[in-house]
């Protein structure tokens, strides 16, 4: 992180005024001087002493956390930002740095929760901090299975032309829908993840030639790897939809547990008018993966089509609960309410959909 960001962030915070003793004021001055002189160990030591003497000193916890994070002492940083957020729960940067420290210490669940909390306030952050936080949140979202949200977060990095190996690995994991972080990929899968990442990057960048060459290589090298055929099927949706079902079928042959592929196949069958098979596939996807929004959505949509509206609404409500930011889930629920004659619910859901569409990015 560039020097000076911490101080600029600090200026954004509503800090408690320093009203300590002369000894404490001396500690503060010495800590700041050590920090300015790039004496990180000295500054850390002085800030530690200062916050022990004055536990309510927000600025002390802030710099203690920030210096610990910058020097790779993530456990200490985590502790400092925990104290900081107890004193000021409204500062997004405190939550974000707490999340980043937790990420580095392996507390991934806490990291995602706290990064989310940092962004939830809607307050602006320093651009450098925001980018780092967004990137780590995207990696954690992939690990948590929220692939669509993670993809939306990762895309802008690719569109800006960034070619970092960790980014490529993160995109690769997301593309293959692997519940892992880049550092956790086993050696035997690194080439697969990298190839998938590079192909997906070319796709995001709109480079059709590179994308298609990438898919040829990927399918040739890893025809039985889970997720490869599903990834290719999603690519074909726009360019050659008639070939999509074959790839979904191949994915289910090599990876029968892929509920996403099964759900998408069900939606394809519905479009083709094969309602019976669509219901069977969607039901299995929804039963196998009750926490997968896409599976609940697909089952809800095909049930709506068959007129089983009460059941459809249950599954579409589940999809919306799982991913409340997914516009398609909301619009499908509005449609099911409408067909069921649930007037007030329809109107509310339609208005919620329009609001969500206005507030969110791009067609979706």
């Amino acid at each position, binding site marked *: 992180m560039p020097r000076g960001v911490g101080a600029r962030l600090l200026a954004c915070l509503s800090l408690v005024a320093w009203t300590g003793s002369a000894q404490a004021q001396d500690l503060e001055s010495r800590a700041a001087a050590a920090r300015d002189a790039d004496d990180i160990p000295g500054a850390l030591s002085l800030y530690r002493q200062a916050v022990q003497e004055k536990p309510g000193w927000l600025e002390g916890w802030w710099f203690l956390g920030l210096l610990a994070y910058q020097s790779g002492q993530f456990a200490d940083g985590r502790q400092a930002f925990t104290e900081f957020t107890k004193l000021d729960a409204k500062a997004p940067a405190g939550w974000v740095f707490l999340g980043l420290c937790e990420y580095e210490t392996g507390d991934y669940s806490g990291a995602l929760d706290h990064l989310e909390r940092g962004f939830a306030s809607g307050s602006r952050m320093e651009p450098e901090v925001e980018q780092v936080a967004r990137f780590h949140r995207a990696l954690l979202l992939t690990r948590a299975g929220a692939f669509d949200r993670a993809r939306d977060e990762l895309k802008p990095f690719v569109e800006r032309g960034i070619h970092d190996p960790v980014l490529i690995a993160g995109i690769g994991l997301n593309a293959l829908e692997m519940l892992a972080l880049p550092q956790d990929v086993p050696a035997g899968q690194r080439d697969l993840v990298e190839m998938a990442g590079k192909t997906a990057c070319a796709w995001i960048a709109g480079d059709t030639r590179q994308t298609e060459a990438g898919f040829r290589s990927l399918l040739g090298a890893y025809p039985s790897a889970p997720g490869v055929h599903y990834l290719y099927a999603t690519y074909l949706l726009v360019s050659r939809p008639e070939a999509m079902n074959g790839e979904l079928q191949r994915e289910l042959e090599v990876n029968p547990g892929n509920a996403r592929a099964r759900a998408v196949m069900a939606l394809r069958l519905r479009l083709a008018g094969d309602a019976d098979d669509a219901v069977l596939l969607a039901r299995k996807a929804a039963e196998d993966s009750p926490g997968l929004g896409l599976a609940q959505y697909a089952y809800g949509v095909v049930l709506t089509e068959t007129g089983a509206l009460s059941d459809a609404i249950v599954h579409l409500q589940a999809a919306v609960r799982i991913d409340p930011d997914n516009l398609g889930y909301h619009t499908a629920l509005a449609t099911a309410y*409408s*067909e*069921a004659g*649930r*007037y007030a619910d329809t109107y509310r859901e339609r208005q919620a959909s*329009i609001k969500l569409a206005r507030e969110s990015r*791009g067609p*979706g």
Partner: protein
Amino acid sequence: MGQASLAAVTWLALAGVGYSAERPAVKFTCATCHRAEAEAQPKTAMGIGMELPPNQTVLRAHPKLTFERNGYTYTIESSGDQSTYTVSDSGGKFSLPIRYAFGVHSQTFVLEYEGRFYESMVSYYASLNGLDVTVGNGKISPHNLVEAMGRLTSDTEITACFGCHSTGAVSDGKLTLASIQPGLTCEHCHAGAKAHLESLAAGKAGPLPKRLGQMNAEQTSRFCGECHRTWDEIVKLRQFGEANVRFQPYRLANSRCFVGDDPRIRCTACHDPHADPVREAAPYDHNCLACHSQNALPVAGQDVPLPKVCPVAQKKCVTCHMPKVKLPGGPSVFDDHQIRIVRSGDPYPN
């Protein structure tokens, strides 16, 4: 199907007319049983859909049309069976034949150049009796004659255009222009009509095409919305503001009075799909009063508030509650299908 035509089919089937080796074959067409619809629909705007040479009546009635914009001059000249679209500037000119004239009263032209399709930069508007910029193209600033000629369309977009203005032009999501028939034929909306005819010719009654009249308001809205745009599609494309006034299923579904399982608010309650829309206001009054009157039946849906009776008038309801909205960037005016109480100064909703 009326009682008489149903009886005719039953009799034909029982008598074995048309498939007995001893009897002359009867050629079944949609008009055999659905005469009124089959005769009326091809003359409607949906039935015509587009004009191909040599039947481009709008262009033939206007043998020379001109328009200027952004330093380019547009000329459409028709002679004999052929119409030509020309754009010129001080440096030269560029001409293409007009094969596909989309629309009936107003027309936009789809032009083919180097294997790609372009939406013409200018369209013919009946209300102007002349040319103006095609809706949606107003912000384009062309850099050369090809860009000035029209907007390059994507494969998906152009497939959708042909899919809604013609029959047989799209198969499995791909353009099949060799088999194009202008306008929407029976089979376009009544999928299975062809198989139904073939089975009748073979002496069997089925299979029957889907009974579209049995669809509820929500299903009808989605069905018509396949061309007129569904509520879902507009929301997902985020096409908010006055430009969406032409997408009637979207607007209607946003109405307070839209109840998905009530047939009184479905598209076909007001519009006969086999006839052109009625342009006067009064004929629609009975549709409004079907709910908004003291004697109206309760609304079918759950938790629906009782429809209010208008304290101002009981006639020409649509003149107040479905205001006319001019489409931004063009001369066209549409009736806003988001039925509502319109208050002065209120912004355009949704």
